[in-house]
């Protein structure tokens, strides 16, 4: 499979603390890669460096083989090819669900309005946001609905890859399921995704590969059954074991469609 994203020895420092300390990873076309690890491991910072919301201090990021961290590359153009979904949804508060998707199509993709409307409605439908919700403002939607609109907003741009930063961490348990279901569908449709999450069940069921990040570094990476069941690194093992008590990973692995 073709390589969509390659991160090479990426480093980012805030003040005296190096938060990302030489991360290297790749995501292939159609792949769902999940990044897990404790809070403060630098996962969110890594995602923000990839779509250039943050400038990495050193290292390189390649998108479809083009180095986007090279001087002279316009970050605005890069972000039009990289979708981003935030932990706290970040929908535009003064716009309805439909307008939230429309705005990026008309203002960024510069589609004519009728075309934009068609694409926006399709995107919302694909994440299970029906017509009855299109005219609602973010404050009138549940967290799960807001996050699905945010996913539709990212999806509508037809990005090469979508980066998701703990997309369910701000949600109630029953709403987590509806968002995870949407992500699972996207994964089946072959949308390339890099997902930071604490949902090991999702990693077990959907991920093509899992990277474990701690203290600014990827310390182990591999297929989910390997990382989640037989991690080699003791730090990963202890983290997984502790979470194991919270989530039943074996069940999820068993239900995994092969």
């Amino acid at each position, binding site marked *: 499979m073709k390589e969509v994203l390659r991160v090479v020895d990426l480093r980012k420092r805030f003040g005296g603390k190096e938060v990302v300390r030489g991360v290297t990873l790749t995501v292939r076309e159609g792949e769902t890669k999940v990044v897990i690890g404790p809070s403060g491991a630098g996962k969110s910072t890594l995602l923000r460096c990839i779509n250039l919301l943050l400038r990495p201090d050193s290292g390189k990021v390649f998108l479809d083989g083009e180095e986007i961290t090279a001087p002279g590359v316009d970050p605005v153009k890069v*972000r039009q090819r990289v979708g981003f979904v*935030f932990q706290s949804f970040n929908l535009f508060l*003064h716009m309805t669900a439909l307008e939230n998707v429309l705005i990026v199509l008309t203002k960024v993709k510069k589609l004519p309005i009728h075309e934009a409307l068609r694409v926006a409605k399709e995107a919302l439908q694909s994440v299970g946001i029906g017509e009855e919700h299109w005219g609602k403002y973010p404050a*009138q939607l549940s967290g799960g609905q807001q996050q699905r609109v945010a996913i539709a907003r990212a999806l509508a741009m037809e990005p090469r890859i979508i980066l998701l930063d703990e997309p369910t961490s701000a949600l109630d348990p029953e709403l987590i399921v509806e968002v995870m279901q949407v992500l699972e569908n996207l994964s089946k449709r072959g949308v390339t995704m890099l997902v930071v999450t604490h949902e090991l069940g999702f990693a077990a069921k959907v991920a093509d590969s899992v990277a474990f990040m701690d203290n600014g570094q990827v310390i182990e990476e591999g297929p989910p059954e390997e990382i989640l069941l037989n991690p080699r690194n003791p730090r990963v093992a202890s983290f997984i074991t502790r979470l194991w008590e919270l989530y039943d990973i074996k069940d999820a692995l068993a239900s995994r469609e092969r």
Partner: protein
Amino acid sequence: MLELNVILRYAPLILSGFSNTLIMTVSGVMLGLALGAASAFAEILGPRPLQVVTSTVTHILRGIPLLVLLLLVFYGLPLLGLQLPPLPTAVLAIGVRSGAYQSQILRSAIEAVGSAQLEAAYASGMDKLTAFRSVVLPQALRLSLPGLVNEFTIVLKDTSMAYVIGVTEMFTQAIHVAQVTLDYLAPLTLTALVYLLTCLTVSIVANRLYRRLSIPGLGTGVT
């Protein structure tokens, strides 16, 4: 005693100045809004040198009394080779000063919109200007409506100072009537009432506007 007959006799003359009062208020506030939005954008998202220049200019404008500013512009512009009649001169001075205040009203509203909205706009592939115009400004304007309406009523009353450069506005007319009739109380009371009623009308209209523009979950400061 209030001389009612003076009021009745000279009311049309005094009120004839009201159109210029309104012209100065509306164009001053609009000019101020354009300048205020531009300088709020520059102060928050502009490159550092532009931030410094904008901040300095707004500080200067807010630190000079309007009366002094009006006279400075009126006597200063011709030295720069620009000869303007009193009314446009007044609009310029009033608008520029209002812009300095409106930039501060907008700036605090923009800061209240929050960086998460801006980050989401950038992450969606918008450039700075599009993010500001399509995402930040519409929300900031809603949040700043109460402040902007307040600014409108302040500018309305401040237009009376255009008297010093000879604009025939309401207060100028009242003073002329007073000088002719030697009755100051009657024409000035009428003038005061007109200012007061206009301000009340503006705040009633503004309250309706707040309600119409209100969006669930987004504060508009309905009073």
